[in-house]
C-alpha cells in the first residue's frame, strides 16, 4: 500500500495518504484532545479509519527499519533499537500490524507465549496494534499476559489486585499521613506500596517520611514496601545519607527531550537503580523501581517530535522496562482535559496504557483518576476500575475517600479497591493477605472485619490520637 515511504488507503471514492510512519500512527489513533492540541490527529472519522487500514497492512518489521525519532537524536530510540531481541520477535516477524492483532486474539496465545514474546516487541509495535483494537480486545489480550514482580511481597500473582496506599497530606504532617496509612491498612490497602507524594521535594522531608513508614513497617512486621515519590536525585541523596529507602520513584516519558524536562536521563536512572540494589532491602525479590507515566507528558514538555501521545506513552514504557521495575503506574487522568478530554478518552487511554505495558512485560498498574476540569466523574472511574481489573491490572491507587487533599484530584479509594476485589474475586498480594488475616483486618473469606477497640492496628490508632509522639509500640 505504500510507495516511496508514503502510506495510502482508499475509502470509497476518497484516497487518503500519510507522509510518514509518525503521521500514520497519529492519524490512526483514537480521538483525543492532546493529539488535536498538537495538531497531529485525524481531521475526520474517515481519515482515521483510512489510517487504520493502511496501518493494518504495514509489516511489523517496518518499525525496526524506520525509527519514529531518529536514532542519532534520541537515547530512548537507541534504547529501543539496541535492546530489541530478534529471536523473541521471530514468531511474529512475518506479520503485518493487522495480522498481529488477529494473532494476539488466538486461543493458543497465552501467558507463556506473551512472556516469551515481550523482549521482541518494541513500543511502536504495541502502540500500533493497540490502535486497531477495540476496548474489548485491549482487555482480553492484556488479561492473558501475566507479569509478577517482588520486593517484600508478590505483585501480579493470579487473582490478586494490589493497592498503592497514597496517604498524601498538604503539609507532609507526619500524624496526618500516619492516620491515612492506618486507615488504608485497616481496609486492606498498601500491598503494592505505601507511597507518599511529598508536598515539598527536599531530602530532609524525604528522610523523615521514609523513616516514619519504615518504623511502622517494622513495628507490625508488615510485608510491604514504602516509597516517597520525590525526584530521583532526592532519593539518591537520601540513600547516601543512610535512609531506609525501599522503592525509588521517578516520572518518566517517552523521548529524551521530555525526560530532560523531568530532569533525568537513562544514566541517572541506572545510577538510581544501582543505588537501590546496593541496599539489598527486598526479601522475596529485588524489583525496586517505581515509575509513573501518563499520556501527554511529552507534548506538555514540547518534546513529542510530532509523535501521538499514546505512542509516546508506549515509548515511556520502554524506558521503564530497562530497569526491572516493581511497579509502573499510568496516571491516566491527572494531566487534564487538554490531553484527555472526558471519561471516554480517559477510559480508552487507561486500557491502552495497561495493554501496551503488559505486552512489553511491565507490571502495570493504573491511577484511575480525573481532575475537576475534565468531563469525567466517579461513575467513569468505576467503569475504568472495573474493566482494568478484568484485564488483570496489577494494582490501583487507594486514596482516602478517593480525594487527594494534597494533589487536588480524584482517584480511587480503599473502598473502590475493595468493591472490585469483591466483584471479581481478587485478593491482596499473598504475603500481605496473610498478614491482614493475622492482624484481624480480613476474615478467612477475605471480608473486612470491623476494627476492635484495643486490638491490633486500632491500638496504634489510639496512640496516634493520644498524641503524635511515641505512638509506635515499643
Amino acid at each position: 500500500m505504500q510507495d516511496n515511504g508514503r502510506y495510502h488507503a482508499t475509502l470509497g471514492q476518497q484516497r487518503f495518504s500519510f507522509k510518514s510512519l509518525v503521521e500514520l500512527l497519529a492519524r490512526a489513533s483514537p480521538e483525543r484532545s492532546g493529539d488535536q492540541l498538537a495538531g497531529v490527529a485525524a481531521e475526520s472519522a474517515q481519515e482515521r479509519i483510512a489510517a487504520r487500514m493502511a496501518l493494518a497492512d504495514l509489516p511489523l518489521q517496518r518499525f525496526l527499519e524506520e525509527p519514529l525519532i531518529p536514532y542519532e537524536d534520541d537515547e530512548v530510540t537507541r534504547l529501543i533499537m539496541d535492546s530489541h531481541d530478534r529471536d523473541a520477535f521471530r514468531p511474529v516477524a512475518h506479520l503485518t500490524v493487522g495480522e498481529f492483532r488477529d494473532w494476539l486474539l488466538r486461543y493458543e496465545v497465552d501467558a507463556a507465549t506473551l512472556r516469551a514474546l515481550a523482549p521482541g516487541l518494541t513500543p511502536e509495535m504495541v502502540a500500533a496494534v493497540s490502535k486497531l483494537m477495540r476496548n474489548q480486545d485491549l482487555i482480553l489480550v492484556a488479561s492473558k499476559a501475566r507479569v509478577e514482580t517482588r520486593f517484600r511481597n508478590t505483585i501480579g500473582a493470579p487473582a490478586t489486585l494490589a493497592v498503592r496506599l497514597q496517604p498524601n497530606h498538604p503539609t507532609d504532617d507526619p500524624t496526618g499521613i500516619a492516620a491515612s496509612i492506618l486507615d488504608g491498612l485497616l481496609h486492606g490497602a498498601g500491598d503494592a506500596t505505601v507511597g507518599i507524594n511529598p508536598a515539598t521535594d527536599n531530602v530532609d522531608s524525604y528522610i523523615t517520611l521514609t523513616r516514619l513508614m519504615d518504623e511502622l513497617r517494622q513495628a507490625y512486621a508488615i510485608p510491604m514496601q514504602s516509597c516517597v515519590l520525590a525526584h530521583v536525585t532526592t532519593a539518591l541523596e537520601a540513600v547516601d545519607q543512610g535512609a531506609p529507602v525501599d522503592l525509588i520513584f521517578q516520572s518518566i516519558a517517552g523521548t529524551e527531550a521530555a525526560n530532560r524536562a523531568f530532569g533525568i536521563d537513562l544514566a541517572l536512572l541506572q545510577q538510581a537503580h544501582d543505588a537501590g540494589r546496593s541496599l539489598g532491602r527486598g526479601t522475596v525479590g529485588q524489583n525496586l523501581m517505581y515509575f509513573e507515566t501518563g499520556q501527554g507528558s511529552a507534548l506538555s514538555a514540547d518534546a513529542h517530535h510530532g509523535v501521538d501521545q499514546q505512542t509516546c506513552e508506549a515509548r515511556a514504557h520502554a524506558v521503564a522496562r530497562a530497569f526491572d521495575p516493581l511497579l509502573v503506574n499510568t496516571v491516566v487522568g491527572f494531566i487534564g482535559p487538554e490531553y484527555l478530554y472526558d471519561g471516554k478518552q480517559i477510559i480508552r487511554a487507561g486500557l491502552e496504557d495497561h495493554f501496551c505495558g503488559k505486552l512489553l512485560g511491565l507490571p502495570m498498574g493504573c491511577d484511575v483518576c480525573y481532575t475537576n476540569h475534565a468531563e469525567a466523574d466517579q461513575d467513569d472511574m468505576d467503569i475504568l476500575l472495573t474493566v482494568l481489573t478484568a484485564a488483570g491490572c496489577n494494582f490501583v491507587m487507594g486514596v482516602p475517600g478517593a480525594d487527594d487533599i494534597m494533589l487536588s484530584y480524584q482517584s480511587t479509594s480503599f473502598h473502590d479497591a475493595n468493591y472490585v476485589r469483591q466483584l471479581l474475586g481478587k485478593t491482596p498480594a499473598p504475603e500481605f493477605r496473610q498478614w491482614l488475616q493475622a492482624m484481624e483486618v480480613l476474615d478467612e473469606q477475605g471480608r473486612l472485619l470491623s476494627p476492635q477497640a484495643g486490638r491490633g492496628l486500632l491500638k496504634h490508632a489510639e496512640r496516634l490520637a493520644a498524641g503524635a509522639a511515641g505512638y509506635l509500640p515499643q
Partner: protein
Amino acid sequence: MSRHQFPAPYRRLRELTRARVAQDTTGSSLATNELLAFQHDWAKARDAVHYAVDFPALASDMRDAGFDTVHLHSTAGDRPEYLRRPDLGRRLSEASLEALPPYRDSRPDICLVVADGLSGIAVVRHAATLLQAFRERAREQQWTLSPVILAEQGRVALGDPIGEALGARLTAMIIGERPGMTAADSLGIYLTYAPRPGRTDAERNCISNVRPDGQPLEAAAGTMAYLIGRALSLQLTGVALKDQGRLIDSGPS
C-alpha cells in the same frame, strides 16, 4: 456484615487529617451519607469550573473599590474551547488588542490582571478584597499600578502580552485556581518580572490557595507586596527569587 458501628478510637482518626479517613461503610462500600457528602463537594468544584463570570458586574465591583478597569478577552471563545486549548487562553483576542492602545506603554510598575481561570467564583468572591489590601501596601511603596485588567477565559500566561503592551515592570496575575474537593474558590497570584510572551513557568512566582480559609487575603496581599518588592529590586522572578525567599512555590498550572 456492616462496619457501620466503628469504635471511637478509629473514628478519632478524622481529627488528625482533613483526608476522608474512617468513613461510614456498608459491606466494603461507602454508606449513603458519605457518598452524598463526596458528591456535594464535587458538585461545588464542578460548578466553579463552569461558572460564567458576569464581567460587567465584576467591573462595577472593582470601580466601587476604587479601581479603573479594562475588559479583555483571550482567543478562547468559550469554556469548552478554553478547557481544550490552553494555548488560546494565553493569547489576546484581536478585539482586545484594539482596546489596549490607551494604556499601551503607560509603564506602570505593576500591571494588575484578574482572570477567571478555572474558578470564576474565586475571582468574583475575593479579587476586589485582595486588590484593596494590596493597594494599601503599594501606596506605601509608591508603586504605580495599571488599571485592573479583567481578562475573560484567561490562563496565567495571558498576563505576559498584557504586561508587555503596557510596558509594566512586573505583571501580577490574579486567577481562579483549579477547584479541588476542599475548596472551589481559591485564587492563585502569579508574579512575572519583565513580562513578555515566551516567559516560562520557572520565571514566575506563585502564591497559591488564596481564600479566607486557606491563605487569608490580607496575608496574601502582604506576601504579594513583599515578593514584588524583592522582585523589583533583584529585577527577576522565578526560581532564583524563590531560593532567596524560601517561602513560596514556583510554577503555575
